[in-house]
């Protein structure tokens, strides 16, 4: 395909949807007053409902059925796929890794984001300091993975190290390490990338919450002789508690579905796989549709309670 072809297709696609919306508007444009509301309302939501029904609901229901079928998707096998996930030794490592990711990332990222937000609050260079930490949010997980793969790069002892982390070890007199090869620590080094990305998100939300703490409350506490760590413990933390919960749950939802980092840095090898990565491998590489579907359903089930809690907290804090 030439570039002209590609851009032609692009403009055609955009045009097509704009025309569809224009036609919808034209078709109901003549219907005035309050009586036609039912028709107008249904026509307005029709494109959305059609897209969601075909592209989201139907596939999701089908996947739930698939999760009870065998690798080729032909015959029912009951709960065999789920039983496999909870008994097979490789799958158990996948589950273990997912648990480590989902527990560690939110707390560490939120902790760093919170400390940083407090320390730079009202500093003269605050907005620059924030931008620095927030910038990784703009970078794709793939880009971030490549950046960190370079930090972890390994050369045998004696050779010139080109990865910063191993060079620091060598400077300190230790032997260079294969950071991404040695289980189970390699999972932690992958998690560092996610923390690097998510801390900026935590910092931005928490910083806004800290600025919302009423000035007279801080003033009153100070008159009572509350400063420093105690101010942080007894005034700051209780005041921003709702935001803290939202940040923690939001990051854990993102982390639960993490795929790009594992895929790019290790491909799931060396015991680093997580559910989302295993879903991809089983569904689209190993050709095991049943197991792939079961992993997707498991992800769905795990995410529900966190999302529900998250939405309720958001409502409460709004």
């Amino acid at each position, binding site marked *: 395909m030439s570039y002209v072809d590609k851009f032609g297709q692009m403009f055609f696609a955009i045009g097509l*949807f704009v025309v569809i919306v224009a036609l919808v508007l034209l078709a109901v444009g003549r219907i005035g007053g309050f009586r036609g509301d039912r028709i107008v309302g*249904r026509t307005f939501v029709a494109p959305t*409902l059609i897209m969601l029904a075909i592209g989201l609901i139907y*596939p999701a229901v089908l996947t739930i059925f698939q999760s009870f079928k065998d690798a080729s998707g032909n015959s029912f096998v009951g709960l065999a796929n789920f039983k496999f996930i909870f008994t097979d030794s490789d799958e158990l490592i996948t589950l273990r890794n997912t648990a480590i990711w989902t527990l560690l990332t939110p707390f560490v990222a939120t902790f760093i984001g919170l400390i940083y937000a407090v320390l730079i609050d009202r500093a003269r260079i605050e907005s620059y300091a924030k931008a620095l930490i927030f910038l990784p*949010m703009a970078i794709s997980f793939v880009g971030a993975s490549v950046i960190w793969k370079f930090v972890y790069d390994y050369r045998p002892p004696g050779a010139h190290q080109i990865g910063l982390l191993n060079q620091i070890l060598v400077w300190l007199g230790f032997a260079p390490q294969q950071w991404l090869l040695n289980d189970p620590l390699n999972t932690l080094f992958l998690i560092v990338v996610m923390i690097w990305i998510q801390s900026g998100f935590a910092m931005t939300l928490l910083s806004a919450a800290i600025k919302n703490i009423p000035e007279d409350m801080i003033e009153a506490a100070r008159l009572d002789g509350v400063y420093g760590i105690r101010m942080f413990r007894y005034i700051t933390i209780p005041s921003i508690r709702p935001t803290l919960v939202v940040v923690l749950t939001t990051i854990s939802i993102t982390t639960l579905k993490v795929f790009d980092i594992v895929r790019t840095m290790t491909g799931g090898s060396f015991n680093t796989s997580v559910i989302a990565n295993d879903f991809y491998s089983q569904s689209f590489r190993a050709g095991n549709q049943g197991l792939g579907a079961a992993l997707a359903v498991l992800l769905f089930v795990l995410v529900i309670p966190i999302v529900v809690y998250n939405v309720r907290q958001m409502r409460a804090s709004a």
Partner: protein
Amino acid sequence: MTTSAPPVGLPATQTIAVTAAATKKKLTSPWASLFAILIAILWTIPTFGLLVTSFRKPIDITRSGWWTGFGGPWTIENYKTVLNTNQGGATFKDFFVNTIVITLPAVIIPLTVGALAAYAFAWIEFRGRAFLFVCVFALQIVPIQVTMIPLLQLYVKAGLAGTFWTVWLSHSIFALPLCIFILHNFISQVPRELVEAARVDGANHVRLFLSVMLPLLRPALVAFGIFQFLWVWNDLLVALVFAGGSPDILPLTVALANLAGTRGTAWYLLAPGAFIAIAVPVILFISLQRFFVRGLLAGSVKG
């Protein structure tokens, strides 16, 4: 950023600024400042190291660490190489074009379709409205993984496999619940009197939507537009599943991930490749920081 430093210059605010400065002195010790600086450095060095590397000669990259390379010699040869040589079926120039071609419709389609639905859910009375809106809202919970195998089979049946349509439609569909939720939040806050006045003047829903709501919706459209732009531009999973097999349509992220998988030590290709992939979002970030943050926060639970 969402908030700014307290304004200075007026007498009233000056006192606040002074007490703020006093608080600050009490809150932060030299150790605390040191810690903040340490985090800032730690957060910047990885990106900086790869950026320096991307401008070094291939032979220098393999022979010495980037921290020794500040003296040069510098070169843009690596960028030329990765842009113009075949990397798994096409060049990075092609992948860059593919990313643009994928991203724009995947942002505009859900915005147009979603704005229409959000308006109807907020301002038109029809039976089943509340129920349908709750359904759309609840669909945000579905992880995209759950839809992928059947969706791929649908695309194959419809003859769309291997075309941009697979990626456009998938991204648009996955974006709709959140898009409608955000736009609805915004649109339902328009004062009722404004809507009623327009209707008394004889405006029907089409005119109301086009001439009253769309202009008011602009900030929400921009915020969600930026979020969706980043989401699609930086996405790996959707592109890998639906476009992964066709070099004609696969985007930068997939190309970069493939390169990391097949030529994991070819840093003279990986470093410039990574910066080509992240350049546009980073420039967007630097130039539109405020909108960017707002957009990102608006859609942070997606996926």
